[in-house]
């Protein structure tokens, strides 16, 4: 399967899963169920994680192709995103 198809599958499946989880959470919140906000949060975190997973899949694919340059670039993007998490925790 081509890298493009692999990425398309990952993003499509992830979108469906994330949308279902957020929708369940939203329905619970509308029904005044307390756990709803937690479910919503899980869905939101899943959506934020999805593009990061996409970069990770690209990193693995480039590494398998022994395409060092692009594997390194993908790793760099992951490192920048990791720095973002660190910034969020430590810089206000």
């Amino acid at each position, binding site marked *: 399967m081509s890298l493009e198809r692999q990425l398309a599958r990952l993003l499509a499946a992830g979108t469906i899963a994330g949308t279902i989880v957020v929708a369940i959470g939203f329905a619970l919140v509308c029904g005044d169920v307390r756990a709803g906000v937690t479910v919503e949060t899980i869905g939101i975190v899943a*959506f934020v994680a999805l593009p990061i997973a996409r970069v990770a899949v690209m990193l693995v694919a480039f590494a398998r192709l022994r395409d060092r340059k*692009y594997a390194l670039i993908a790793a760099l993007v992951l490192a920048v995103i990791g720095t*973002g*998490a660190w*910034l969020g925790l430590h810089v206000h």
Partner: protein
Amino acid sequence: MFELVLFAMAFGASALGGLLGMAGGIFVVPALVLFAHVELHTAVAAGIVSVIACSCAGAAPYLNAKLTDVRLAIVLEVATTIGALTGVLLSGLIAPRVLYLVFAAVLAISAWQMFARRGTSDERTVEDGERAYDAARLPVAMSLMYGAGMVSALLGIGSGVLKIPAMDTALRLPIKISSATSNFMIGVTAAASGVAYLARGDVVAAIAAPVVLGSVLGALLGAKLLLAAPGSRLRLLFVATLVALCVQMTLAAFGITLAGGGA
């Protein structure tokens, strides 16, 4: 009840955007700030999450049609994500009223672009033109992408409106490849600021969730209707909406709100 209003607003914004093959993110944050009176940082964080969701939701067809240049995307993403982190750092330092003005400027650029958008006659895909761009112009594209990433993080939008012309003019890519690749990059760009806003506690689930849900469903509906949509009248409606929001954001920057109540 408030949640349903947020959902409806995001749904409408996204469907309208999707009708013209454009992300509706640019409507969501102003609507949250101006009409729902959501605090700016919370609105931006909710915008970022909805931008990620819409990018992921729209990516598959472009990828399968080989319109997305994934290698070019990952290279440019180095610049967009670093730009996003710069935006995260700046967001704490810039006064909201200055951000309103930046937002008004981006709305004006979007309106102008939508008004003057050229035809999509270039049907080339990535396979036909293996690396259709001139690598010597990559540094120019990278600096433009850095700026686009920063604007995305600051305003909670995808800033495809800045990415597409950057690829268009700096790399001279066919418009369809620019659009597909821009949409692909938007998710990762927004994820870089998204993790920061999540960690910082700016993402309020009760606000972000209805916005995300409305955006994804609205974008799906908009894309469906796009097939049958009549062009020019809709485009004018879109331009008018952008101009109206631009005016309101400018007024809000000077402390005047027309929509009632204090922002």
